[in-house]
């Protein structure tokens, strides 16, 4: 393989190369990014080609696997809506980057920057003077029939404000080597976060390639993003409070929202975390309301304010548009800027650019015809078989004319005729191809690019690079990723090697030290509390199951006493199978009942449902957990959500053993890494409340309602609480109920005892910040005090005769357990009321849906 520019005739090939590159089947027609012709390398690919050749296909595949492992460990996902279990698609990255020379990029970047200026000028005009409409530069149907034009946003920005701050541009190169724009993104121009994560992961998996690569780094672009956002703030310019508004963990790109919030030091918030009062936007935190100056918006604008925009939206903040109108909060992008995603605009941009900017359009769009114009309509109808037809309405399919038969084309023509202004025709051009690693071989695949610009000074600045993805050319980013598309790292080459810098390790301006965590959004506290409860519930259920399988296996092998299994089933809340004809039949029915809790995705008390709760709450607090905790959670998900086929009892026990280690690791890491501030307190309170309730249940089962009371069951209780060894060491005797009760109920130094758990709850609840700063004990403080005092004042002597089957002792114990449990059952509601109750959802006075 030889590089094109090193020869007098650039299209002459020769030179023995290596298999990987020599076997690269350059397509006969079209534009290939790497090769100008079969065997003729483009010069800027030289170094990379050498590296790929030296590394070889096999080693590259190994690295590729490593890349996928790292991505999965980091939890990089692209969720799909509509999947009942919300299983996220795994993000896939090809290890071979896409290269572009600095010269070519500067031309492209100038075109992208101009496009952003143009579309911003268009927004400023359409939401105010409407010259473009009145002068006939844009037809009214294209503006008003497009749902992205939001008339409540008319004059909604203070004069001189910018509408478009972040702009995503979908691009592809045609057979002639020229770039064309396929679409504009302004609602939620996703991809910058994935781009960054791709780069970081690839640099980890291919350090020798990335360490000194002469490529333009991305960090300074993100620095500009952050600086631009900060400059939008009207209040607190020195330290503005900025948030990223996300639709929540169900959004397909939630991973990116959490990632960017972290990277840019923004609070990650959902609509219900915010409230408008006194014409300003506030974040509801544990410490009260905190003013918000800037919102990085990742919720589609129509959903942002149920008062003035879509009244059925639950994602928005009532009064937000009015607050923006007053200038007290800045949104990026401004509400209403989704208009520029209108696919029909492409047909009008060249003259618009001359009118609005006095410049010629530098970067052309894919040739587009708007059917509302009679001439264009005739052209589209006459050329249906070679065009792609798109509706300008959202969530509509598109039609590739070349794939339709005559009847379907006639049907499509009727559709267009019925409402021509809603349709555009677009030319289809073969996309350029780039090498993608498949089975150890490089294969040419069509690629699309998503570039980004950000407002900077009076103009815009383009990201040097972006997201490349292997594509059919028709799909959007969302479609491509939901179909399991592959992304690539897009390199812009620099003349010299560039240092790899991360924004995460830098600070912005003066640091305002804060430590108490009272600025934690109430919703986050709520989710942390439930994350704690679910993780403990998962642990408790897995422990019971492990013990049950253990007993089942012992009984099968050694014919030991298996009667305590019935009590274990009670503890797991599953019905005890009817008396079986044979031990064999009993074994199978017991095994099946237990396995259901592992395998069934819908079993209400099963591991998978509990884990769903843990993942749901975990995702909602994604950026409050450490990276390692997150990796463990991902491992846990893989392990529990994908149980092996034909699971047996022994294998199940081993699986549970691993689950327990992962859960312990997760909880331990949270203890070790999360600062023990307000957020952690809620997590811990959730965990210990769940644990104490479960321990009380276990006691009740073992000593009050047991079907088969006695030593085997008491042993089970000690094993489940992991206290058998502690018991033996301390008492060196056979099992005795009084001693067990002492160890697991009263011993306040034993983390598995009720006494310890109540003390811990009391301490942490006492450290919670009370929203109203009242000097009196809060409801939750009173409840935990009642539970602890009841336990501490218990008459231990009255319980001493438990082993003699004394009714008095067991009644006494039952009464005690109930008295301790009762205040605890009210604790959850009390916490919700005191700390999470801001979460009430606003609703419309009158339903305004037509």
């Amino acid at each position, binding site marked *: 393989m030889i590089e094109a520019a090193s020869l007098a005739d650039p299209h002459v090939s020769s030179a023995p190369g290596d298999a990987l590159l020599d076997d690269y089947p350059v397509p006969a027609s079209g534009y290939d990014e790497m090769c100008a012709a079969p065997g003729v390398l483009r010069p800027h690919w030289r170094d990379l080609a050498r590296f790929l050749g030296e590394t070889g296909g096999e080693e590259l595949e190994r690295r590729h696997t490593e890349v996928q492992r790292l991505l999965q460990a980091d939890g990089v996902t692209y969720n799909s809506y509509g999947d009942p279990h919300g299983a996220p698609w795994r993000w896939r990255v090809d290890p071979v980057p896409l290269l572009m020379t600095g010269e070519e990029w500067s031309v492209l970047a100038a075109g992208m920057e101009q496009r952003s200026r143009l579309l911003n000028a268009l927004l400023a005009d359409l939401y105010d003077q409407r010259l473009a*409409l009145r*002068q006939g530069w844009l037809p*009214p*149907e294209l503006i008003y*029939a497009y749902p992205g034009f939001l008339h409540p946003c008319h004059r909604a920005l203070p004069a001189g404000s910018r509408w478009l701050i972040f702009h995503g541009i979908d691009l592809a190169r045609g057979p002639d080597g020229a770039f064309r724009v396929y679409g504009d993104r302004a609602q939620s121009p996703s991809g910058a976060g994935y781009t960054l994560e791709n780069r970081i992961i690839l640099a980890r998996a291919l350090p020798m390639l990335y360490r000194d690569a002469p490529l333009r780094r991305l960090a300074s672009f993100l620095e500009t993003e952050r600086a631009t956002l900060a400059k939008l703030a009207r209040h607190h310019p020195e330290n503005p409070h900025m948030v990223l508004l996300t639709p929540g963990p169900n959004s397909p790109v939630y991973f990116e929202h959490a990632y960017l919030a972290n990277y840019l030091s923004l609070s990650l918030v959902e609509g219900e975390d915010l409230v408008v009062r006194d014409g300003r936007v506030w974040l509801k935190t544990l410490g009260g309301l905190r003013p918000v100056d800037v919102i990085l918006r990742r919720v589609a604008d129509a959903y942002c304010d149920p*008062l003035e925009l879509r009244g059925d939206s639950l994602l928005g903040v009532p009064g937000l548009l009015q607050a923006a109108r007053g200038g007290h909060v800045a949104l990026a992008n401004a509400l209403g800027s989704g208009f520029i995603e209108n696919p029909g605009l492409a047909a009008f941009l060249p003259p618009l650019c001359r009118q609005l900017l006095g410049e010629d359009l530098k970067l052309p769009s894919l040739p587009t015809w708007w059917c509302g114009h009679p001439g264009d309509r005739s052209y589209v109808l006459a050329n249906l078989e070679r065009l792609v037809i798109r509706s300008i309405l959202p969530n509509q399919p598109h039609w590739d004319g070349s794939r339709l038969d005559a009847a379907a084309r006639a049907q499509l023509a009727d559709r267009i005729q019925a409402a021509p202004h809603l349709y555009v025709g677009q030319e289809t051009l073969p996309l350029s191809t780039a090498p993608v690693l498949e089975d150890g071989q490089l294969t040419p695949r069509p690629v699309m690019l998503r570039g980004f610009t950000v407002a900077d000074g009076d103009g815009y600045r383009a990201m040097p690079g972006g997201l490349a993805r292997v594509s059919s050319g028709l799909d959007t980013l969302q479609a491509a990723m939901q179909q399991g598309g592959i992304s690539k790292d897009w390199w812009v080459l620099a003349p010299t090697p560039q240092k790899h810098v991360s924004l995460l390790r830098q600070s912005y301006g003066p640091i305002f030290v804060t430590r108490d965590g009272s600025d934690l959004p109430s919703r986050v506290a709520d989710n942390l509390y439930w994350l704690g409860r679910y993780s403990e519930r998962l642990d408790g259920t897995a422990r019971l199951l492990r013990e049950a399988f253990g007993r089942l296996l012992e009984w099968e092998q050694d014919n030991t006493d298996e009667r305590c299994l019935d009590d274990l089933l009670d503890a797991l809340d599953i019905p005890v199978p009817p008396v079986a004809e044979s031990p064999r039949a009993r074994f199978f029915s017991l095994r099946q009942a237990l396995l259901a809790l592992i395998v069934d995705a819908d079993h209400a008390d099963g591991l998978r449902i509990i884990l769903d709760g843990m993942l749901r709450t975990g995702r909602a607090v994604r950026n409050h957990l450490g990276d390692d905790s997150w990796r463990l959670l991902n491992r846990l998900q893989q392990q529990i959500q994908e149980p092996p086929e034909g699971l047996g009892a022994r294998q199940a026990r081993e699986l549970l053993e691993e689950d327990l280690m992962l859960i312990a690791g997760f909880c331990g890491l949270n203890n070790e890494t999360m600062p023990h501030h307000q957020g952690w307190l809620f997590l811990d309170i959730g965990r210990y409340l769940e644990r104490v309730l479960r321990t009380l249940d276990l006691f009740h089962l073992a000593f009050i309602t047991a079907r088969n009371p006695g030593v085997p069951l008491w042993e089970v209780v000690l094993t489940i609480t992991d206290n058998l060894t502690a018991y033996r060491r301390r008492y060196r005797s056979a099992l005795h109920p009084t001693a067990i009760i002492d160890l697991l109920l009263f011993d306040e130094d034993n983390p598995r005892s009720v006494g310890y758990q109540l003390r811990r709850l009391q301490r942490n609840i006492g450290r919670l910040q009370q929203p109203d700063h009242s000097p009196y004990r809060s409801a939750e403080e009173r409840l935990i005090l009642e539970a602890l005092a009841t336990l501490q004042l218990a008459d231990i002597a009255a319980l001493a005769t438990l082993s003699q089957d004394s009714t008095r002792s067991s009644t006494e114990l039952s009464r005690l357990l109930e008295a301790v449990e009762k205040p605890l059952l009210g604790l959850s509601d009390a916490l919700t009321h005191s700390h999470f109750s801001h979460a009430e959802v606003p609703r419309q*006075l*009158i339903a*305004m849906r037509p």
Partner: protein
Amino acid sequence: MRYTITHRTLYQYSSGVALCHNEARLLPRETPWQLCRPSQTRIKPRPALSVERRDFFGNRILYFAIQDVHWRLEVTVATEVRVLDERPFDESSLSPPWEHACQMLREDPDPEIIEARLFGLDSPFVVVRPTFRDYAEPSFPPGRPLLEAVADLNQRIYREFKYDPHFTTVATPLDEVLRERRGVCQDFAHLAIACLRALGLAARYVSGYLETLPPPGQPRLVGADASHAWLAVYVPGAGWAEFDPTNNCMPKEKHVTLAWGRDYGDVAPLRGVMTGGGSHSLKVAVDVEPSPEPVKLKPS
């Protein structure tokens, strides 16, 4: 004519409302034939914030927020208006053949005509279907002057539809109104708009009030009046001509204009989003009182 319009809305909630944001379109807009004195607005409890502005259609909007817990919300707006008898169009006005009007609307580059094309498109409450065109067609033979044809459509709706306040709600689809031949002023206005848009014309929804006369020999009842709605059709190059299908007439001095838009959704008198409140009850009382004394009004 001179009137004092009093529009009172009362919401009562079963549990406290902690916070509410509202938009009222209760301040009448000025037009060449309607002069307004400053409105007296009373909102109880007192809003923490209230701001007036103009919306996209030029209507006057009062935004207000109440930030203290409340169990009832009362909004009363009283405005003195003077409605002139002269309007740009009346029953004898000349107009171009309706097809010619459609063509001008499509092709004329005059900015005002271009702006009017917004009102030829579907809107949330008015989605055009072929049935509306079919219904309109008998009134629109080829070459008939636009206003004559619309007056005929107006009269047909008046004659063929039954006024039935118990049949429809805000959410009754227009198809059903057409099928069942009954509805209220809002439905009739929407229907006429749908018919005109189906033919390629531009029409807008007008909300307002109408003086109602007591039965002979009985006194006027205060608060017995109601909000009213009618429509306006665009005569390209000449302006908007109003029609009231509920009363088979062209609005004159008895029709007081409040606001206009593409359909009811753009002019709803009071909308709001609240936190809390449980269930609620609503009372609306409208009073259109002819002013005995001539009110001194200055055109703005």
